[in-house]
């Protein structure tokens, strides 16, 4: 049964973000802030970079603030001014990505000013931006969220989000797929991957796809076919999932932005599940020296090795 999700704190959160942004910009603590602003379409939001204290009033937080802004602080986005400290508005899921980026030497904590957002959830990509946030319209990732309230930030508004207890959509879908035969799973993914047109939106929004030279763009050697045909598409998505294994922080941006509705985050969640089971690894707010696939223990599982 569809139930509304309480987003009443978002107005107060928006006010708090504006006040803080105004303060740190005018005090010169940061040179710019990456946040969300309202866009033309009804109820919609878009990323914005502001550098003037007056522009702080443009910042908002609503259920349409789906983007993981961490991507703007990676090397893939050289255009964002890097002269000085940057403020960034982060949800819990986005903060995990920032922590991962710090662990991978892409960011330094002292170079960023974290404005954490208490978040009860954001909208799914399948609904119009003006939709009310409900148990149906909520983004699937939010059903599995354990990070409604970011910690370790420089500023977090005082509001406490009301976290609804929701059916875990990915876990359920993974369980469903795992119960299928390999041939059935192959058929499922084949259908999904065949839609892919290699627009690389999944790669471009991913905070962890910060490589200057993507392996899949290389042709000497051609590790992965670049053409958007079923073979190359399948290879691309397998390689993408593997490269994110142990790094993905679960923001689900890849899946949200896919114009062909490919459930990409399922692959990432499956990898996360395996890493949890195998090595007790979970993406969190903590900055790790080494990711789970950059380390080992002598006692690691090898039941699959003859």
């Amino acid at each position, binding site marked *: 049964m569809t139930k509304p999700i309480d987003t009443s704190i978002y107005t107060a959160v928006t006010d708090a973000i504006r006040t803080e942004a105004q303060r740190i910009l005018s005090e010169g603590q940061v040179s710019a802030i990456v946040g969300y602003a309202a866009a033309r379409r009804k109820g919609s939001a878009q990323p914005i970079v502001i550098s003037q204290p007056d522009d702080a009033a443009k910042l908002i937080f609503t259920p349409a603030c789906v983007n993981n802004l961490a991507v703007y602080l990676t090397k893939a986005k050289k255009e964002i001014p890097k002269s000085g400290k940057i403020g960034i508005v982060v949800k819990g899921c986005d903060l995990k990505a920032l922590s991962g980026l710090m662990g*991978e*030497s892409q960011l330094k904590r002292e170079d960023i000013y974290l404005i954490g957002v208490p978040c009860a959830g954001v909208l799914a990509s399948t609904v119009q931006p003006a939709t009310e946030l409900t148990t149906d319209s909520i983004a699937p990732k939010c059903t599995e969220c354990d990070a409604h309230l970011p910690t370790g930030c420089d500023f977090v508004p005082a509001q406490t989000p009301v976290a609804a207890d929701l059916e875990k959509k990915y876990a359920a879908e993974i369980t469903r797929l795992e119960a299928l035969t390999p041939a059935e799973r192959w058929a499922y993914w084949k259908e999904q991957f065949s839609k892919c047109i290699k627009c690389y939106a999944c790669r471009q929004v991913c905070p962890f796809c910060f490589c200057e*030279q993507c392996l899949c763009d290389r042709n000497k050697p051609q*590790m992965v076919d670049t053409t958007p045909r079923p073979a190359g598409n399948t290879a691309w998505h397998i390689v993408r999932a593997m490269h994110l294994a142990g790094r993905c922080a679960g923001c689900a941006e890849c899946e949200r932005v896919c114009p062909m509705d490919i459930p990409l985050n399922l692959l990432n969640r499956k990898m996360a599940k395996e890493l949890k089971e195998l090595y007790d690894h979970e993406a969190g707010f903590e900055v790790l020296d080494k990711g789970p696939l950059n380390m080992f223990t002598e006692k690691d599982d090898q039941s699959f090795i003859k």
Partner: protein
Amino acid sequence: MSRIGVFICHCGENISRTVDVERVAQEVGKLPGVAFSTDYKYMCSDPGQNLLKKAIQDQKLSHIVVAACSPRMHEKTFRKAVEAAGLNPFLCEMANIREHCSWVHENKEEATVKAVEIVGMMVERVKKNRVLPTITVPVTKRALVIGGGIAGIQAALDIADCGHEVILVEREPSIGGHMAQLSETFPTLDCSQCIMTPKMVDVANHPRIKLYTYSEIELVEGYIGNFQVTIKRKARSVNEDTCTGCGVCMEKCPVRKIPNKFDCNLGMRPAIYVPFPQAVPNTPVIDRENCIKFKTGKCGLCQKVCGPGAVDYEQEDSLVVEAVGAIVVATGFDLYTIDEKPKGSAIKGYGEFGHGKIPDVIDGMTFERLASASGPTGGKILRPSDGREPKQIVFIQCIGSRAREKGISYCSKVCCMYTAKHTMLYHHKVHDGQAYVFFMDARTPGKSYDEFWRRSIEEEEAVYIRGMVSRLYQKGDKIVVMGSDIAVGVQVEIEADMVVLATAVQPQKGADLLAQKLGISYDKYNFYSEAHAKLRPVECATAGIYLAGACQGPKDIPETVGQASAAAAKVMTLFSKDKLEREPIVARVKESGCVGCFACKKVCAYGAVEEKEIRDRQGNLIKTVAFVNPGVCAGCGTCQATCPSKCVELDGYTDEQVIAMIEAL
């Protein structure tokens, strides 16, 4: 366009019996890029190699594939031949059609088809091979030896005698180590100090040995041939250059009752002291914890009496940096302290044996000091509690060693022999005394060792009881030892005057921390790991670092000396050339694409990956990228498989080569 030459070897009949070599040569000749293909009876023979060289010149070949035996067998042979013909040796690959084909298949058709595919795969691979220049690394011909026991001393003397400078670093105020503490040595019973002290003096007098005692390793940077080592010289409070070693300071020091660690705390020393009279250097050190001057600011007697004015209360710890090309680690061992559970260790203590509680329960090293002519009792065996001569003495072997339930499963190797020696020394000094030994097995492999052990029973009247002791307790001035004799199957109870425990040999405390500074690996007991248990027993997996003595595992003196000389020989081999040549199979970073995530650095077991800053002409930092030090890289390629953007490539095993091989199939 590449002009590839393919040479198919018959290997007598070893290959040609199951593989149709002519057909392989013919089929392979059709592959794109192949300019010449032929077969020959014995490619590795002189005529075979000449055929190869001649074809390279006549046919102007650019790449070579020799299809023959395993590359593990003849890759070097053919690469040399190719080099002699003027091609870079790394433009030659071998296709293994013997071990992996003709010898393991019977069906000629199948084997021939497989051979064609194996060769085809190598043809595609060799096409992508690049000219690889041999890597040379300069060698600093100075060695660092860490630890001034017999192992370190021997290694230092050998290297120095060979003409190279040696830096010898010792943590204690004097070199000598455990061997200097021993009374006599098995199996010859010669006096340990008599054979040890001349070597110590040799070290002190050697023009090419720079000795840093009372010093520790702070930081190790660099790689084989080019290490920079920072050494911390702890403040001695006595100037080594001006001190004459007259000893007046020690005589005048008002603090006299400090237990001397060298004598296992049985003897006493002043606050300004040398650990033992034959110490090298013979320069005292002030024990600042016990010195009145340091505690209260008063006294200063030693400074007043010092003629040359060597006493310096203001001295501070100092750091020196030494450049060396090789490091010998000889940090030795320590004895298992049974009444303590080492912090954070899985190893359990032996509380039930009363060590540390019952004064006359002592360990083997304490017994050595009692038996030593220069020891606290002048060589008399006397009980620490009341100074009486023990008439019944019990030795218990395997305390800690071979005790899986206590967390140590290895054999300490020297205890059987030194316990036998102890019974003899005891018998020589206490003629009316009786020695008992509880033992599990007697392990006496070694020249004259078993004879020595038998002598202790047959001539020196030691009673050996096979079995373990279950409990010890003080009863009056006796120590009741309860155990079992499993050979006879009875319970044994002995009222002893003294009990000596043969405690396990363990690595020095902090061995793991030193290993982390050096970047060498160690086992779960903190013993250092050799590169190969059989074939590279004195080398560490980290190039340029060698092991000597008990830091690698329990050893007796002859074995330690032998390994120390072996380590020295390895160092001298390294120093025999001005530049170090190595196979150019190393990883290289493509800096333009590197994003500096340092996943490569995280997985490199050799610490070969460094961080390198890239700056523009104005000196502004553009980015920080990974840099693989070719001197340190061992060429495993784990970094490349880990790099998300494949911006680090292992020469000789590039993605291009691998993909070409897969695509050839």
